């Protein structure tokens, strides 16, 4: 018996979510009285995982996994889990992790619960809380299979240091030729993604037109934030679909979500429910967003946002 955690990296460096899933998986390993093994794919500095509690790291180095391939990654992680006799496998909820998790579950004949928000309430029977109805509710779900797969929601547990050895050993999975080839990747490398962002600056129809997004981009730059938008804004083509936040768009689990000129439709609010602190700036005091936010300013975005940007710049300069 052991706990296995997959630690995702990009260009050799671990993502922040990798440290969060290690922190979380360590807590489960401790609860079960067993060790934590991490598995990495083409990552450079695996000793970093020891900071958060990895006792052992299975390092996979394989050129055929240079591009993400769900089948190949799923097989590699499944074989790593089997080699460790893992009874719990922890994954994050990045796009790639969500892509391969169901494949890992079939490989390991495991029950899989996604969007998990807390440590298991009990481990025998194994009961765990996860968000359902697009963050409008939680379910306490019991997993009946010997092997359990947990998809931990971003920012649901946080980082917890817990020094361990992170003894690394190479691991060579047996991979099949993949039927799916990556032709091209289109990703802005200079921008923070909504998935990775701690702060998200989001704007809606209140901005009146795509030409007015300069001040939103500026705020995002000052705060090191990702930009996002409401559904009507993406439907009208003012911003790309990739920025649409809400029930049919992206969920946002940021530390700080700033909504500018967004009225707060129920579908939008569901999408941001797992963000910690929400700020709304809107001219309409009756906008539903004011009922869902922590802080608000009633006023015109075209007056307030430029002022806020100036003050934030000064604040960041002072607190840098």
């Amino acid at each position, binding site marked *: 018996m052991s706990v296995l955690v997959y630690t995702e990296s990009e260009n050799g460096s671990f993502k922040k979510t990798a440290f969060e899933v290690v922190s979380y998986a360590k807590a489960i390993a401790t609860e079960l009285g067993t060790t934590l093994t991490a598995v990495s794919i083409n990552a450079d500095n695996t000793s970093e995982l020891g900071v958060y509690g990895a006792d052992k790291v299975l390092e996979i180095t394989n050129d055929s996994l240079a591009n993400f391939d769900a089948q190949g990654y799923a097989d590699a992680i499944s074989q790593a889990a089997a080699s460790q006799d893992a009874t719990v496998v922890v994954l994050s909820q990045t796009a790639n992790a969500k892509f391969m998790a169901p494949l890992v579950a079939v490989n390991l004949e495991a*029950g899989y619960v996604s969007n998990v928000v807390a440590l298991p309430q009990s481990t025998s029977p194994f009961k765990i809380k996860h968000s359902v109805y*697009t963050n409008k*509710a939680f379910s306490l779900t019991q997993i009946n299979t010997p092997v359990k797969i947990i998809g931990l929601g971003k920012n649901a547990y946080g980082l917890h240091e817990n020094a361990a050895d992170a003894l690394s050993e190479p691991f060579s999975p047996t991979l099949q030729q993949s039927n799916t080839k990556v032709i091209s*990747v289109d990703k802005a490398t200079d921008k923070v993604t909504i*998935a990775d962002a701690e702060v998200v600056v989001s704007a809606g129809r209140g901005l009146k037109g795509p030409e007015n997004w300069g001040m939103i981009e500026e705020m995002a730059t000052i705060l090191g934030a990702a930009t996002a938008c409401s559904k009507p804004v993406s439907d009208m083509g003012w911003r790309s679909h990739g920025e649409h936040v809400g029930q049919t768009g992206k969920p946002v689990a940021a530390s700080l979500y700033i909504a500018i000129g967004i009225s707060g439709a129920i579908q939008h609010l569901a999408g941001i429910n797992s963000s910690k602190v929400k700020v709304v700036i809107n001219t309409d005091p009756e906008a539903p967003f004011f009922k869902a936010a*922590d802080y*608000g300013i009633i006023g015109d975005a075209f007056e307030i946002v430029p002022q806020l940007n100036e*003050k934030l710049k000064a604040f960041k300069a002072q607190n840098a």
Partner: protein
Amino acid sequence: MKILVCISHVPDTTSKINFTDNDTKFDINGVNFVINPNDEFGLTRAMWFKEKQGASVHVINVGGPQTEPTLRKALAIGADEAIRIDTPATDGYSVALQLAHVAKEGGYDLIIGGRESIDYNGGMVPGMVAKIIGANFINTCISLEVEDTKVTAIREIDGGKETLQTTLPLVIGGQKGLVEESDLRIPNMRGIMQARSKPLHVKPAMEQSPRSEATTYEKPAPRGAVKLVDTVDQLIDLLHNEAKVL
């Protein structure tokens, strides 16, 4: 090309979510059920394949008789036949197993599901179906072109998109982007009339036991009232000193 579109029967996006029976059951009182939005984008893309490339389109749902109006709606939109697997949808794996059985027996080339259902948000059924039947799989699919058995697809990744090439048989987890919101179809009277006479096959479920089961539900704790401030200085001060997020 034979296409199978998997349809989840879900509360519409404006629904208030409540639970009954000591928080063990979803309260359907006053709730309007619809085709899961992610599935509807896929169904609409399937209609394009039907009209431009002569594909046949079947829709399928795992659920009780109460889901039939949702399947009829899919028929009214233009699907040729519907299948209902007569068993309650429990965990994702059980649903995937039922769908995989039909997908394999029916010899479908393309199986279209949604990225996730908006009720359980499991995000696992299409991937599991693909793995069980040994088909290729693309998740968060936002563009799909098929020529003979060659597939070019675009999937959304964190912070961008990726273009992929693969082959049929294929399962996708679709979402907005497969078609635009404005491409979605509201069934017209002719479609609704035709849907009444299209086949809706009810099939018995295969026996299996759930790998996981929901025990109880709860709703998020109510939030405190919003703190309204007048100046941006006050806002920055609160975010820094009180919320500690700046």
